[in-house]
């Protein structure tokens, strides 16, 4: 009896506030826009059968016809992919160096990586506005050391979005890779070197494959949230930066077209299901390997 209550309370909570809302989104994505409150029709007040019979895929057809949405999905995938690769290129060397650092430094290094994660995400993105703007610190610095003659335009471009994503998601990349490298048995690399591998070759043939699960986990932890990102493209990107999270937000708050916003969300969810399932499989495999 007590066990049933223990299971039921969190279960019902998640059903009511996580799963059912998706059903609502799906239903509204099949509705039509209306000049009323709520701004869509039909509603359950019209009777269940009348409501079901009026639902159609019109909004999804609309999404395929207007190429804004296609471009936004594709460009989100592209931006998320490029940022993930960049985050890996910055994060791997850091995780690797942390795993090789003397034992007594590691806790401090780890804390230095985690600390930004506890700091407000919004503020960390905002910090870059002052750095990347036309008269910002980066341009001032580059002009001062004489690399450039005229200020670069970085803020409000895709480059600024890449920088923002790499910056904010870097801890998510470093931590899983570090924990994989930390467990790595150093004698394996020594063995490879004894058997005639160069250090670079030993790194490539031993270290990288053995940290594979960490790399995969880190990449998914960056790629999945980056795909639906709203704050970074809105604050650092320009009018040319198309990302689906931003389109959805604007469709909802500026155009007030709830049915289309819901259809945008349903498709984003369908795109995300593949990486989410792959991610969970990777985590499960790792958990099994540890047991």
């Amino acid at each position, binding site marked *: 009896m007590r066990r049933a209550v223990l299971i039921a309370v969190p279960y019902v909570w998640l059903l009511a506030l996580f799963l059912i*809302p998706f059903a609502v989104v799906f239903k509204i994505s099949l509705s039509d826009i209306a000049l009323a409150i709520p701004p869509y029709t039909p509603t359950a007040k019209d009777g269940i059968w009348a409501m079901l019979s009026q639902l159609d895929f019109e909004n999804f057809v609309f999404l395929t016809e207007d190429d804004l949405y296609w471009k936004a999905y594709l460009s989100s995938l592209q931006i998320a992919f490029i940022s993930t690769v960049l985050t890996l290129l910055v994060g791997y060397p850091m995780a*690797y160096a942390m795993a090789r650092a003397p034992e007594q430094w590691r806790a401090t290094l780890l804390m230095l990586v985690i600390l930004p994660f506890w700091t407000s995400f919004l*503020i960390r993105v905002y910090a870059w506005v002052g750095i990347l703007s036309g008269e910002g610190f980066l341009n001032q610095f580059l002009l001062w050391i004489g690399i450039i003659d005229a200020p670069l335009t970085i803020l409000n471009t895709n480059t600024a979005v890449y920088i923002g994503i790499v910056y904010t998601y870097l801890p998510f990349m470093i931590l899983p890779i570090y924990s994989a490298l930390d467990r790595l048995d150093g004698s394996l690399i020594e063995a490879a070197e004894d058997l005639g591998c160069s250090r670079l070759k030993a790194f490539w043939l031993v270290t990288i494959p053995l940290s594979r699960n960490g790399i995969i986990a880190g990449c998914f932890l960056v790629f999945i949230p980056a795909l639906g990102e709203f704050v970074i493209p809105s604050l650092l990107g320009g009018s040319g930066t198309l990302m689906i999270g931003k389109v959805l937000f604007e469709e909802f708050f500026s155009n007030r077209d709830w049915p289309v916003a819901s259809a945008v969300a349903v498709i984003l969810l369908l795109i995300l299901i593949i990486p989410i399932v792959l991610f969970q499989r990777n985590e499960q495999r790792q958990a099994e390997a540890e047991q």
Partner: protein
Amino acid sequence: MNRLSPFNVVSLTLGFVFLYVPMLILVIYSFNASKLVTVWAGFSTKWYGELLSNDAFLDAAWVTLRVAVISSTIATVLGTMAAYVLVRGGRFFGRTLFSGMIYAPLVMPEVITGLSLLLLFIGVGLDRGVLTIVLAHTTFSMCFVSVVVSSRLVTFDRSLEEAALDLGASALQAFRLVTLPIIAPAVISGWLLAFTLSLDDLVIASFTSGPSATTLPMKIWSSVRLGVSPEINALSTILIGLVTIGVIAASIGSKHAALRAKRDEQAAARAQ
């Protein structure tokens, strides 16, 4: 592997410069006398004064704090229950769905979570305000709590609980007197995580709040959209300072706890 090559040192140094310089610039320029954030015009704390006399910011901070305390507390209770069910619950109907609902919110884009909750609240006719933000924050942060707590429960020696039950404790007593003290550090860090996630959230709060409740991130958002402002720099500095103190205190605390546990262990070994 304790040999740091020059390449390792360079990548660590550049990495930490990249992580910390933006925040450092923010902190330094919050003490700038000039309204122009990129030109230094002498040291001043006037922006802190203006911030503290700005009622809109103070109101928003109060709303945010209330939401964060309430939602993280409920989330900790629900998340701990969920973790217990996942690790110890055995098989029950719909277990796969349950664990899916625990893990999916961790990676769900905030725009989708926010939109779906808003449409639900409208659908059932719930007025948007502090209550709806609390419900929304509780839902996603309970999943984070549950992941943190279940990772502790997995490594927990179950025979301790069984011993308590054999010695006549009720299931509830065994949980309260044996399990809870052992998983307490994970429960506390789960609460802290839920609290920070709630403090920090912009997107979900924007969807689920009504005109009566504006949170601090929403307030920050509406002013940073217009560009860099020294008041926001001052506010950021305060928040960064609080977090830094909190994290350092927590890490010192856990180091002391670990040392004490080690001492106790050694004392126990000697006593035998």
